[in-house]
């Protein structure tokens, strides 16, 4: 029984998904009912995850049944909480949007929970084929959610682009697994790790090729340079809330699996890819920045800027290196995790707020649609400003602290030139983020205002306000203003440290 408690969060989400699926057979339930039920399940899962939040542990329950393919440790628990939180916030922020789009039916919420289930599994897996299954559960759910938008002609392009490319890159992954299996005769990551630790030279060629192919999957899913072309169209065609979900939560899930694999098992050979990744970072930053500057639709601008943020994340990732039996710069793993949290909050906030504003209309959300928002709805504009400042990395927001960590660790690892490039990308990002702030504040509201006439006192608004407060709190930390030691920025870092340390419990 004691082992069962670790499985509860994932199982709760799965049961929730199935419940919603059965509920969706009946006409009588409204979207509101579905959101409520989904949230209940998610909060239960969150509650059970929080039980063991601060402990440091690592178990592989039901050995004979699960055959060691899943690990339950503080690390996976940390990511589970992030993923569940991200999903809850997506649901709550999207509440307004969901209710005013006829294509959101019961099945959609069931699929959302299936996606979450796949992602949570991904945080646990310790075996390559299981990882593929988990990844595909999540990916397929996301494919469907992208295509759910029946009112937009772009969605066909979006879903097909994503589906075909995703399946294609999935084949790369499988080929990589096969090659690794050919060399090591196992797909269990712990055993692959043991093989890597004891072999070198010719024995490793297949492993290197296999892992490089798997790396491609990783880069595709997080939209790094040569694999980024789907992002703009997919993000553009998907319903706004799903775009937010993909940009923030899905990215976290991908990172959780690859961070585990790298830190726990693949660390000894990690420096092999440094050159490739350096080049990828350069191209990702340059290309993402160029794309973001040239967009006029807010959604596409945010999507393109998410490519730039991928570049920052990779910058922290590359700072990891290995020498003489230990991982150097383990701090950059914490920096990555912190940045993921920072980006989750700011991106979810920014995308979510945009979706909230356009819920009752059908506009494309260009810069022009934001004109004069500050005069119509000062608090929404203020919150949007907070998210944009956070994305741009301006102090007093969590985005600044995130950038501080990532850049510090990158310099610490000796990647000063790359960091300089990242800083230049940040300078440009100030331009496209501040342009939106300028549009909101400095133009008079247009005569035919597209955003007036909805009630602001609703769940979405409060959820967005909650995220905005977190964004500020994460950047200031209450220690500086009120001298309260508890709500400290350090506590997030400490939590991520405990999480990463649990990877090394044998």
């Amino acid at each position, binding site marked *: 029984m004691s082992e069962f408690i670790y499985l509860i969060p994932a199982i709760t989400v799965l049961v929730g998904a199935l419940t919603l699926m059965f509920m969706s057979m009946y006409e009588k339930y409204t979207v509101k009912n579905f959101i409520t039920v989904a949230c209940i399940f998610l909060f239960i899962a969150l509650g059970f995850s929080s039980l063991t939040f601060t402990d440091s542990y690592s178990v592989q329950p039901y050995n004979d049944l699960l055959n060691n393919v899943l690990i339950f440790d503080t690390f996976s628990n940390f990511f589970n909480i992030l993923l569940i939180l991200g999903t809850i916030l997506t649901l709550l922020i999207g509440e307004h949007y969901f209710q005013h789009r006829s294509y959101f039916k019961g099945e959609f919420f069931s699929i959302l929970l299936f996606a979450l289930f796949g992602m949570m599994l991904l945080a646990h897996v310790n075996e390559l084929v299981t990882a593929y299954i988990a990844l595909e559960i999540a990916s397929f759910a996301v494919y469907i959610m992208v295509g759910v938008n029946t009112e937009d002609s772009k969605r066909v392009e979006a879903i097909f682009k994503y589906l075909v490319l995703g399946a294609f890159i999935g084949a790369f992954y499988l080929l990589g697994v096969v090659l690794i299996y050919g060399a090591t005769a196992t797909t269990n990551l712990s055993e692959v790790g043991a093989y890597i630790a004891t072999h070198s030279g010719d024995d490793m060629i297949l492993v290197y090729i296999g892992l490089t192919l798997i790396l491609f999957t990783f880069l595709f899913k997080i939209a790094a340079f040569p694999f980024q072309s789907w992002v703009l169209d997919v993000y553009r065609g998907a319903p706004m809330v799903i775009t937010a979900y993909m940009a923030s939560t899905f990215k976290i899930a991908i990172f959780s699996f690859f961070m585990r694999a790298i830190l726990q098992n693949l660390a000894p050979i990690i420096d092999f890819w440094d050159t490739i990744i350096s080049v990828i970072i350069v191209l990702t930053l340059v290309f993402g920045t160029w794309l973001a500057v040239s967009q006029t639709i807010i959604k596409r601008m945010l999507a393109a800027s998410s490519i730039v943020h991928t570049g920052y994340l990779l910058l922290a990732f590359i700072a990891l290196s290995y020498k003489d039996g230990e991982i150097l710069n383990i701090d950059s793993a914490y920096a990555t995790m912190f940045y993921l949290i920072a980006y989750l909050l700011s991106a979810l906030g920014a995308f979510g707020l945009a979706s909230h504003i356009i819920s009752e209309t059908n506009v494309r959300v260009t810069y022009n649609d934001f004109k004069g928002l500050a005069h119509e709805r000062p608090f929404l504009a203020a919150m949007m400003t907070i998210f944009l*400042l956070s994305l741009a990395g*301006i*102090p*007093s927001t969590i985005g*600044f*602290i995130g950038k*501080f*960590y990532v*850049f*510090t660790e990158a*310099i*610490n690892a000796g990647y*000063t030139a790359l*960091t*300089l490039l990242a*800083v230049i990308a*940040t*300078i440009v990002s*100030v*331009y496209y983020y*501040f*342009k939106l*702030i*300028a549009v909101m*504040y*400095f*133009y008079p509201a247009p005569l035919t205002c597209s955003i007036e006439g909805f009630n602001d006192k609703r769940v979405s608004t409060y959820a967005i306000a909650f995220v905005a407060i977190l964004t500020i709190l994460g950047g200031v*930390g209450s*220690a*500086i*203003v009120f*001298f309260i030691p508890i709500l*400290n*920025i*350090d506590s997030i*870092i*400490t939590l991520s440290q405990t999480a990463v340390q649990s990877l090394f419990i044998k």
Partner: protein
Amino acid sequence: MSSDILSFIIFLPALVAFALMITTKDVNTIRNIAFLTTTVILALVLKIYIEFIPSEGMQFVTNVPWIETYGINYYVGLDGFSLTILMMIAILIPTSYLLLWEGRTKGYWLNMLLVQTGVTGTLLSLDIVLFYFFWEVMLLPVFLMIGSYGFGKKIFTTIKVTVYTMAGSLLMFIAILYLGVAYHNEFGVWSFAYNELMKITTIEYSTRVWLFLAFLSAFAIKIPIFPLHTWIMDTYKNAPTGAVFLLSSIMAKLGVYAIVRFMIPIFPEIYIEFSIYFVAIGLFGLVYFGIAALMQDDIKRMFAYSSASHLSFIAAGIFSLNEYGINGALYLTIAHAIATGALFLLVGLIHEETGFKTIKDLGGIAKQAPILTFIFAIMLFANVGLPGTNGFVSELLIIFGIYEFNHTLGYISAITVVVGASYMLWMFQRAILQDRPEGSPVLKMRDLKIKEIIGLTPWVFLVFLMGFYPDIFIDKFEPTVTHYLNDILHIGAAK
């Protein structure tokens, strides 16, 4: 509590601003409470000024952990140098409120309050990450002010000024991180306090030069030092009076301050080595901006150039490596803040009353507004450096300092001051004194109201007090300057 008095001074305006933002919509209430807040701060600063002991180093220090993982502390304190500038800020802001009294909106006053938090925080931070935090934050309210209440191509201007200054700041940011990492590698612990970063010995010479330049880029843009000045013309022209006042009188001074506070202690030998170039650039800037000011027809642009010209002179003084020069630069910092602040506010007033801002449209104001003209003239003379005003003392000190540093440059600097006098007096003659025919619209100009006169009186008083008795002010920061020269630069105070 006494040790937290600085934190109180820093955060009070922001807290008041947030409270006002939520509670009330009435502009007059907001303005009155905001004004009250600034006077409370002035009272507290006076208290600090009395309790301050010049011979000791950092005082009123608060040092509590902020982000422990990286050794970043909430570390504030002040020495003679920051005290002088704190005084300046505390006096200038409430009086500027009196001149901006009528016809503003809620957002205007809230932003004014937020700026005060930003600038005081920047001034008092001794941890360099904390400093960066405030340094960036103080720009945001100004951004909103220019965009919301500016004139002309204001949106282009806001984006330009933001990206321009952020570019400099972010380059400094990367240098800060590099220093932090170097410190960590050398001592095994993280720290970003400026007095800890001074101890770093491991960075190579060429890297130090790059770091020095990265820091300088942030400060030189804010000051501005030639050739990083291109943002100020549009900004000063299009920005509302309050924002121009804040940018020119206060934020530019913080750039000077930051050079002394952070760059000199952290890069002493590079500072000494490069000083000749910066004195030369400073003097060149003085002449270049001076001549540019002569050409201007827009009165705000003219003042923008004149301000840049004086700040170049300050920069030249800062880099002159001796006590005269640095004392003079600090003194001119304050003198210039008072004089330029007053002139910008008065020009803003003229612009709002008459609608004109080109010099050739103005004129005849002397007849309509004698008191305004009188105060305008005093500030103008202080700016030009007429004997008896504070401008004279400071310019003299800087010229001495530069002469001591390099005789040739000293002669040049003495001559260049004439440029400043020429454009100022010419402008005064054309825009204020010269006669206008009866019925021309400029003659609508009203004279100063009693509230505005009360606001400007302490400034006028200070101009002369600092002009006749410089010692009572210089004594407060001279020990700090001596400490810098003896203990940090090791070149001795030339007496």
